[in-house]
């Protein structure tokens, strides 16, 4: 085993693995990394064969003390990373030695980082997952965000090579977001002019955004009120409450809800949204159901090609 101690808990740092599945019927939400792409790249760079338990650091100000030698990496939002005060690059794997202090400053762009170690953090799971859902007090350590002084056991796995994602492939979190929307759920409740409005409106992320969902602001999209029985909500679903301002529901959403939904944002775009903050420019564009297969092929190709772009450092 290797291990770490939390020196600074930061704003909110939580343990996350790929998420909690198969427990929605108990009322347990999915949880998991809000930015799945960065989370997955961390595992790929570390050559972790299966999705590992990582630390999602929101906003920043987080620090760990290494109690053993191991290999780690940080992906995601641009938080300055240092080891014993020496700047280190994100999207790289690094060796770390016993007594080294690893520190993340505050995000200059993006909102969340993934701090991962070779083999992953090793803690007992709740309902098959380490993912922390604060509202449910489930996962992580006692269902809470990480706290100063906590001991974090991790796997002890040897990695002979270090890897990096070339800088040209690092995501640009400052760019306006175009969210692909797959119509579904109550799509037939909205008429042509309402759809046009949804696709032509310029939205911004409002002050209300978190791991549950992102509430947008902009021109309200009003439609005649209509009762809806509560129903299961999928990751990325777009809710339109009576005030006409869309809410994109993310990892920690409640499992059931009764607001009408015109459709669902593509998962990769929902993950990108989770890196944005108040004021970020958002637009929606339509994705036809017939485009889904091409979209999925493109995603498989993206992940296959991405791994081939990794540069070996040693």
């Amino acid at each position: 085993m290797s291990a770490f101690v939390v020196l600074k808990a930061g704003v909110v740092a939580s343990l996350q693995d790929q998420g909690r599945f198969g427990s929605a019927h108990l009322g347990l939400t999915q949880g998991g990394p809000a930015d799945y792409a960065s989370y997955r790249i961390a595992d790929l760079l570390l050559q972790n064969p299966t999705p590992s338990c990582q630390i999602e650091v929101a906003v920043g100000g987080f620090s760990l003390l290494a109690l053993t030698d191991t290999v780690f990496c940080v992906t995601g939002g641009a938080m300055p990373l240092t080891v014993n005060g020496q700047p280190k690059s994100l999207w790289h794997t690094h060796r770390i030695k016993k007594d080294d202090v690893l520190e993340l400053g505050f995000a200059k762009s993006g909102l969340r980082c993934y701090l991962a170690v070779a083999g992953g953090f090793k803690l007992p799971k709740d309902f098959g997952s380490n993912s922390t859902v604060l509202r449910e007090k489930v996962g992580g350590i006692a269902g809470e965000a990480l706290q100063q002084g906590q001991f974090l056991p991790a796997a002890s796995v040897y990695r002979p090579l270090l890897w990096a994602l070339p800088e040209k492939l690092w995501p640009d979190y400052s760019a306006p977001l175009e969210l692909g929307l797959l119509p579904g759920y109550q799509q037939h409740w909205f008429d042509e002019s309402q759809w046009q409005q949804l696709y032509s409106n310029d939205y911004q992320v409002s002050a209300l955004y978190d791991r549950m969902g992102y509430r947008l602001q902009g021109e309200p999209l009003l439609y005649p009120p209509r009762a809806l029985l509560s129903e299961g909500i999928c990751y990325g679903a777009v809710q339109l409450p009576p005030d006409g301002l869309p809410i994109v529901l993310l990892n920690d959403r409640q499992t059931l809800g009764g607001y009408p939904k015109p459709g669902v944002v593509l998962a990769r775009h929902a993950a990108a949204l989770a890196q944005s903050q108040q004021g970020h420019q958002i637009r929606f564009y339509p994705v036809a159901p017939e485009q889904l297969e091409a979209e999925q092929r493109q995603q498989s190709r993206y992940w296959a090609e991405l791994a081939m772009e990794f540069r070996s450092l040693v």
Partner: protein
Amino acid sequence: MIQLELAGENALILYLSAEISAQNLSQLQQLQYQIRSLLDEQLQELLPSYASLLIVLKAPHKGLLAIKTMLEQQLVLSAANTEPQGQQLTLPVYYHNAWDLDHVAQKAGLTTDQVIELHQSAEYRVYAIGFAPGFAYLGELDARLATARLKSPRAKVPKGAVAIADRQTAVYPAESPGGWNILGLCPTPLFEPDNAGTAKPLMPFVVGDKVRFQSISRDEFFALGGQLPQELC
């Protein structure tokens, strides 16, 4: 009639007629059984609610539209008006006017004793579980008790709060924010995560079960392990 809609890149939602009915409950039980046998290992989540069933698939799968067509062709809606399956369960309630009991009585033009009597005289079905772990939507409440949600939700609803909204009733499994009208407290634990991986159930009920409430005294409430929220101590 079955209607299927897309609910994401890897998800479909099945709709029955938009009503709260035992007929829907029973048909959803049968449909879940059929969907499990048709999709088997491809299923990630199967989440029933009043008149819908969210079907989430594991990626990669055989194509969402192909699976949608297959389900449209294969799923059979039984015409028989069968009783939904479910166990019977009684939940004790220490009814108390510290919250909304008087408000509900006043709105309904009843005494608080009559409200309690109406609330505990009906048998409810678990129509859905969600909102929070172990939160069961129970229906249908006697129409005379139907009360709108609070205009402004409470920041803190105590653990075990027995509450009503419209024609639904529920017990809050843990302290949380909430906008339902509170009638009393139930001492029975409704979500016990420590039971995971043991022979004991996480929750005393599943969708389809029949629930009755039974009025208990303050002493009985404490004897059953109930704890009053701080403001009532």
